[in-house]
């Protein structure tokens, strides 16, 4: 393995409390080490540049059934954005839903090295992993959708938390998943017959359970299994005016399950769950209320789901929400319900700055990012590709770092939205240190990826170097320079190898796939139980459902000791 030294960079490593210190990093055999032989090692001169851990994305739809159907649905998205084959890279297409290889390359160019695919229908997990095997450059993992799985609904309805935990453990291993994903709990089951649930206390038709019981139940299950991440929740009523109350209810309902200051729930793409008002005309921002709650309660983490004005493709497991979006826009609509487990939908969407609603959405995301005081509990995402494609992250970074940048965009948005926006009253500007938290350190911490998101000795040598000098550049005024620097890293180092340089891929590498392997006290019992009931629930055989570890191109299991 090659040895590397990154010299003289301004290092931002929040997990080790290093804030822009000028220092050298030594890399050996894919890991950060204390020292290497300077004569043998290759030296990267990072003077005048920022050095950060490789980016970590906690929520981006990049692989699997719905993403791929989105690709199929939108040739018009691909025609204008193509990447030709080179000696090193494969070709590809796609702006909002790039093909697998292109996805990997584009993340690597931005200095991202670990990404999480947040919605995997368990029945179609094999598909997700096939695509992840074809997504180069990054380490990755997937969250199986479990909030509407019949086993979960039945176990929790009958108060059988331990059985539920055992079933969840089984499906984590069977699908090679990483975290419990809950989407519109109860609503997706109801959507099987075209219905939905209205709030977290509504009863799920035919199952006699409420969304609140599902969320609390799975939160307890998550603790019993000692999962590395918290439950990852897409709230009920997502994308509807007035839903900030549902989001608050969702956070509140697990308040008493928290102990010792550790988060127990992650509310994802929170921007879509932070709307006040009773309809689209009276829509207002609920960011203040949500931020206030989060500032006073340490059991919640959020990610933004920041809107950027562009043409994109919305895709979620929330079938009823996507149907609503189809009715709103009249655009082409895909629905895909998955037996006993979940549903999903896709609608192309264009966020327009002159639209009152879209401009308000844009403002809400940034308000959340700026009003939540603790950067360790809010992460930068666009819920790629729902609110915008991931390649827009540098623009969001510039908005968070610069009031100027916000004001300039603000001048061009819908007038009514501008007058109602809270943004002009917010002075806060992120520092590079805080940016490093919301784009890597915080996310790695939330995911308990101990080797990622920092540059301490023993960490994976995933490093991003950006060509911008924090001593010379004031990000508030020179926000364009910031944006440019974050668009293409000067160097991206993956596992101790230089993979991208000045926006060009110089080496194609294969990333690992993380998955969680909960150790149960009696795994055979669970398997027998599943086997017995299997044919009643699915149309495939038990033996063909589980994915063998050999199916993953580079498997990286994480064992956890479960309490059941």
């Amino acid at each position, binding site marked *: 393995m090659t040895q590397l030294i990154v010299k003289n960079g301004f290092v931002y490593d929040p997990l080790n409390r290093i804030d822009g210190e000028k220092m050298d990093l030594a890399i050996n055999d894919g890991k950060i080490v204390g020292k290497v032989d300077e004569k043998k090692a290759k030296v990267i001169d990072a003077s005048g540049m920022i050095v950060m851990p490789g980016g970590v994305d906690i929520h981006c739809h990049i*692989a699997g*059934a719905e993403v*791929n*159907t989105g*690709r*199929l*649905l*939108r*040739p018009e998205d*691909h025609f204008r954005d*193509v*990447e*030709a*084959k080179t000696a090193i890279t*494969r*070709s*590809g*297409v*796609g702006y909002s*839903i*790039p*093909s*697998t*290889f292109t996805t990997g390359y584009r993340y690597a160019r931005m200095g991202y090295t670990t990404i999480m695919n947040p919605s995997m229908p368990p*029945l*179609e997990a*094999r*598909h997700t992993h*096939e*695509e992840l095997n*074809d997504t180069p450059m990054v380490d990755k993992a997937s969250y199986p959708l479990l909030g509407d799985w*019949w086993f979960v609904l039945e176990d929790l309805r009958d108060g059988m938390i331990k059985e539920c935990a055992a079933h969840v453990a089984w499906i984590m291993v069977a699908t090679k998943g990483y975290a419990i994903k809950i989407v519109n709990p109860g609503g997706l089951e109801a959507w*099987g*017959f*075209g219905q939905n649930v209205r709030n977290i206390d509504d009863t799920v038709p*035919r199952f006699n359970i409420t969304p609140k019981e599902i969320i609390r139940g799975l939160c307890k299950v998550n603790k019993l299994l000692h999962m590395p991440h918290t439950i990852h929740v897409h709230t009920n009523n997502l994308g509807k005016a007035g839903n900030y109350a549902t989001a608050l209810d969702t956070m509140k309902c697990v308040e008493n399950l928290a102990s010792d200051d550790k988060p127990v729930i992650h509310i994802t793409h929170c921007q879509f769950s932070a709307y006040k008002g009773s309809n689209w005309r009276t829509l207002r921002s609920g960011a203040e209320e949500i931020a206030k709650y989060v500032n006073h309660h340490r059991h919640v983490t959020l990610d933004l789901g920041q809107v950027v004005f562009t043409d994109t493709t919305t895709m979620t497991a929330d079938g009823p929400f996507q*149907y609503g979006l*189809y009715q709103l826009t009249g*655009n*082409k*609509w*895909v*629905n*895909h*319900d*998955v*037996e*006993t487990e979940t*549903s999903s939908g*896709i*609608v192309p969407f264009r966020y327009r700055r002159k639209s009152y609603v879209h401009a308000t959405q844009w403002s809400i995301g940034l308000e959340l990012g700026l009003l939540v005081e603790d950067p360790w509990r809010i992460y930068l995402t666009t819920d790629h590709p729902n609110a915008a494609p991931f390649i827009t992250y540098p623009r969001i970074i510039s908005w968070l770092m610069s009031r100027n940048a916000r004001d300039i965009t603000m001048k061009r948005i819908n007038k009514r939205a501008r007058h109602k926006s809270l943004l002009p009253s917010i002075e806060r500007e992120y520092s590079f240190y805080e940016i490093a938290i919301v784009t890597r350190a915080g996310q790695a911490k939330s995911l308990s990826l101990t080797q990622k998101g920092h540059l301490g000795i023993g960490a994976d040598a995933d490093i991003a170097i950006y060509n911008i000098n924090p001593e010379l550049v004031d990000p508030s005024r020179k926000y364009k320079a910031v944006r440019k620097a974050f668009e293409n890293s000067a160097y991206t180092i993956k596992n101790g190898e230089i993979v991208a340089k000045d926006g060009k891929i110089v080496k194609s590498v294969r990333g690992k796939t993380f998955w969680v392997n909960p150790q149960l006290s009696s795994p055979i019992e669970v398997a027998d139980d599943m086997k017995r009931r299997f044919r*009643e*629930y*699915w*149309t*495939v*055989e*038990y*033996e*063909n459902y589980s994915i063998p570890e050999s199916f993953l191109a580079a498997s990286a299991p994480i064992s956890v000791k479960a309490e059941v």
Partner: protein
Amino acid sequence: MPVVSHVTCPVCGSFCDDIEVIVKNNVITDVRNACAVGAAKFLDYANHRNAKPLVRKNGELVEASWDEAVRKSAEILIDATYPLLYGWSSTSCEAIRVGLELAEEVGGVIDNTSTICHGPSILSIQDVGIASCTLGQLRHRADLIFYWGCNPWSAHPRHVERYTTFSNGRFQKSTWRAHVSRLGGILSKKRLRRAINLVLGRDVFATPEISRELPYNMFQKKRKMVVVDVRKTHSAEAADYFLQVEPNKDYELLQAFRMLIADEELDVDHVAGVPVETLNEIADVMIGCKLGVIFFGLGLTMTEGKIRNIDAAISLVRDLNQRTKFLIMPMRGHFNVAGANVVFTWQTGYPFAVDFSQGYPQYNPGETSVIDILCREEADAGLVIASDPVAHFPKKAAQNLVKNPLIVIDPQTTPTSLMADVVFPSTFVGIETEGTAYRMDHVPLPLKKIVEPPSNCLSDVEILQRILHEVRRIRSKRK
């Protein structure tokens, strides 16, 4: 006797995965759970095998070494300016992945069989989207099942039993008992009519008039099956109601349903040969169901109107979702044609007809689709895998395909392989080789290896990889 269970059946898009295969001394002696089509493949696959690589010399296909065949193929592909790589729907996703890499490497066009089956469905999905699901969702919930322009009884024989009318779900029960008792009635009616015809001296073989009236069970709450077709197929006989449509009038019928569902009135008495009163009743049944589904086949995609038919069908389903829950699904033919679309899409962004000649994927069916390229005589070499275009393409396309150097990868001797310049004997995926394939509803399942392949055969993946390596080797040498 060793029984291999939970085997997936590498034949049709239903992709049943509960097959049991009995193997004795590396020979399959019996098959359980499979339909006639599936069993026939498991039991007879070993006939008409390509045993050795063949290369055409002086007009004759003669046996050659693997190295020679691989080198010849690589040279054909390198020397071509616009090679075609066609087939893919009856092999594993793993092979398709290598195939795409090869197509990109040689700058060719890669296309799969959906170009001649459900290509119009895909174009429609790109126009209007699709409201669909996995098959289990229908097994558990669907109470109104339409088979439109398809004949599952013959083409997907276990579809009805495993996924729809005769399957048992959580919220919907199987109706096979009612069907059996009704069958008795139908048979005795037939006999009676024949007897009467004989007595009265009428033509016994004349097609009986089909009653347009909806039977009482169409208004019951239990599961119902409706078949829409131009002729009374076996599936139609199993249905609760058979709606006979005049040939090439599906579009009118679908649009009429859309109007009726929007509560508009029709000014005509008949649409596509069906009285409007009947259509009104069916429209009411559609609106009144809890979850309905339309399965459609080539009777809709390949008859007059093509993509417009599917546009109308999907739009009808979309409209129905304002009143109840309704879904729609194409009846895919080959066991991995859905998988071919899936792999093409994640690697290139497009499901079929992908052109790499510019170094990046381009897609414009009609321009980059294989039949059109062949008819315009633009291609100058071909690679065919797991398909038999000479037997199925239009004459002109087939002629132009075999005019150029042609490489065929196939386990069996086919009309296409007989016309080829290089033939590779491959193994049967799902019998002799493992892999992954996608059911018609995009549920991925493993293909199993049950028996050892003949000694001189290689898997599709290996053959393609060898060609790819050879192409790269020769290219780097020539540089």
